């Protein structure tokens, strides 16, 4: 059996590593390793310099467990030609041998051998993690991996991966609860923590896949100057269910990149929008807050009232005549919407950062408050973007006067509905922020949930908006163009 495994490992390494060497991709492998380590170390830094400044053993243990366990999964994503079960089934070996082979292949390869010790060394230096903690974590990690491989061998159905996912969560939760039980003051938070772990895990997985997508896109497009082919990127079976969650990896899409560029250029080159928008924002903020610019009210009023009116509601109006050319191209309509949302949200964030700077300089606003608000602004904008998407498609409206932005016309229905929904959403968010500020442990619990649910809300809305766009495409063209 050992000789069989050895032979297959040699074969697979010939296929993977040697082919890279043959094709002169040594630099590519080297950059991969650097990218991985940068990613790992930056994530660990995020863990240490977290905005909640909780460094007690519980939060530390909680964070380290899920961050590192997922990081470990993340290492594996960089292997360009994994030994898949399709390949393994060619060989006359038993299921048990397949598991051993998979595990040995996945974790005894050059990338992992190089990167894991570096990361663990950095972790121990930054966080002063003990040897016992690392051992416990490794046991947990390898339990999950073995279970995962067992499930993969048994079936390739995604549902089995869900089972694995929940088993992993339970194991993870057990690791967290044991130190919690020793401190009675934490017991009350156990149900919240369960939800938190679940949501954080999904969120972090998405985040990692997103970062990975950017890494790979950068790697392929810029370093290798090659067009990206999604089907060439290896995705292990364990990760299939996550792909369902993350919009079919929009960030790997060349078309999306171009749409974002186009939307951004159109907005930037509309000088009136760029000048008129911040002025109106400050005036409105002053009016709402009776001339006293308070951080939260100003920012929230901006998000609810000003930004959607100039950038969000009726977003097809920005395209004008180009809309015909755009809709005649064979492009996934979801990408058009995502691009507009991303551009809108990034412009909003740039504007908000500019505004924050003014507030910090003139009103001596606390930097921690700014960060705190910003953390909640992102999920809030995601929800507002979802509402804007729906209204843009439900009530398309053409600009009557392209030169004078103040005379732009919007559907009165879209404005009324938006104001109503926006105010309700903002109200809920204001309550959440107040509760979060009162109990710092709640922030730890609430914030990942807010991100998670806003994300789910966005995805669900995006699907229905996409369907609606398919049905109303001709009507929108007629409305905007003719």
């Amino acid at each position: 059996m050992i000789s069989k495994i050895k032979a297959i490992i040699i074969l697979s390494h010939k296929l993977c590593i040697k082919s890279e060497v043959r094709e002169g991709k040594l630099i590519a492998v080297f950059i991969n390793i650097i990218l991985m380590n940068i990613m790992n170390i930056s994530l660990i830094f995020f863990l240490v310099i977290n905005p909640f400044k909780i460094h007690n053993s519980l939060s530390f243990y909680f964070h380290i467990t899920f961050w590192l366990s997922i990081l470990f999964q993340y290492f594996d994503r960089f292997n360009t030609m994994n030994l898949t079960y399709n390949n393994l089934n060619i060989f006359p070996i038993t299921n048990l041998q397949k598991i051993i082979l998979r595990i040995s292949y996945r974790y005894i390869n050059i990338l992992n051998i190089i990167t894991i010790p570096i990361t663990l060394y950095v972790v121990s230096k930054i966080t002063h993690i003990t040897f016992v903690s690392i051992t416990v974590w490794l046991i947990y990690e390898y339990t999950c991996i073995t279970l995962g491989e067992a499930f993969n061998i048994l079936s390739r159905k995604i549902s089995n991966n869900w089972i694995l996912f929940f088993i992993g969560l339970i194991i993870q939760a057990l690791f967290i609860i044991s130190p919690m039980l020793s401190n009675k003051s934490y017991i009350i938070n156990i149900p919240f923590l369960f939800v938190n772990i679940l949501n954080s895990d999904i969120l972090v997985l998405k985040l990692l896949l997103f970062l990975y997508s950017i890494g790979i896109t950068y790697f392929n497009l810029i370093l290798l100057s090659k067009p990206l082919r999604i089907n060439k990127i290896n995705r292990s079976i364990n990760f299939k269910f996550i792909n369902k969650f993350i919009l079919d990896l929009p960030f790997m899409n060349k078309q999306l990149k171009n749409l974002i560029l186009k939307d951004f250029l159109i907005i930037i080159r509309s000088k009136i929008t760029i000048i008129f928008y911040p002025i109106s924002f400050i005036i409105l903020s002053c009016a709402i807050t009776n001339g006293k610019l308070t951080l939260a009210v100003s920012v929230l009023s901006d998000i609810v009232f000003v930004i959607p009116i100039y950038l969000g509601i009726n977003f097809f109006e920005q395209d004008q005549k180009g809309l015909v050319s755009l809709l005649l191209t064979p492009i996934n309509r979801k990408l058009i919407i995502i691009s507009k949302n991303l551009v809108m949200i990034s412009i909003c964030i740039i504007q908000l950062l500019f505004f924050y700077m003014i507030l910090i300089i003139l009103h001596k606003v606390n930097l921690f408050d700014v960060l705190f608000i910003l953390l909640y602004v992102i999920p809030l904008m995601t929800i507002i973007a979802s509402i804007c998407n729906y209204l843009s498609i439900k009530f398309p409206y053409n600009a009557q006067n392209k030169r004078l932005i103040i005379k732009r016309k919007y559907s009165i229905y879209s404005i009324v509905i938006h104001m109503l929904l926006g105010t309700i959403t903002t109200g809920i968010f204001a309550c959440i922020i107040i509760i979060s500020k009162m109990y710092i442990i709640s922030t730890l619990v609430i914030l990942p949930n807010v991100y998670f649910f806003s994300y789910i809300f966005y995805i669900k809305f995006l699907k229905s908006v996409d369907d609606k766009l398919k049905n109303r495409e001709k009507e929108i063209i007629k409305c905007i163009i003719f």
Partner: protein
Amino acid sequence: MNNIILVENLTQQYGDFLALNNVSFKVNKGEFLGILGPNGAGKTTLFNLLSGITLPTQGKIVINNEDISKFSFEFKKKIGVLCSNLGLYNKLTCLEFLQFLGNMYGIQNNELEKNISYILDVLQLDLYKNKVIEKCSTGTQKKIGLAGALIHKPEILILDEPFESVDAIVAYNIKSLLKDFISNQGTIIISSHILEIVQHLCSKVLILNKGKILLESKISDLNKKSLEEYFIDIIKKEEKNNDK
């Protein structure tokens, strides 16, 4: 011959106004069809329907054996459209617009660069490639629109009045480009008010008035009479019939 475009009983109604009334015709592969008609005849409506921009009230259009109401991505790759409003992004430069469209059609970078340089060269747009579209003249905008229709090397070109508001040199460039396209087994449908150009370029002509087809004929079957004479005769006859 293969029917590459099949239009059957096409009707388009806007409220009480009947823009197209039971229009049916066929276009063969490699054919150059010119659609003529006075203002308000229904040409632009027909072009919008042919290019899939709008949906008909009744009837069907089949392109390459595929009903265009399905709007498959494959169908979109096969046709190039110059619509009446040109479909340009005024805030982008000519080059940015062409790169954007090329990427939307999923053309590989190397191929896209070749396509763009060829089209810019043929349509003499090199001087304007870094100019924002809204600052270009109407004729140049028309050429950019045409370049956008050709960027993905379609099999069928649907061009709504490509010779409108263009000077003689631009018209000459467009004509030679269309001749090249036809010689490479492409199929073209154009509409125009310039009857000499239609007679010179097209292999088949279709005259529309008030949403109805008045004439469908090959140019070679016009019995040495000029297209202009045919056109005026037919429209006058139709008006007389309507007066009665």
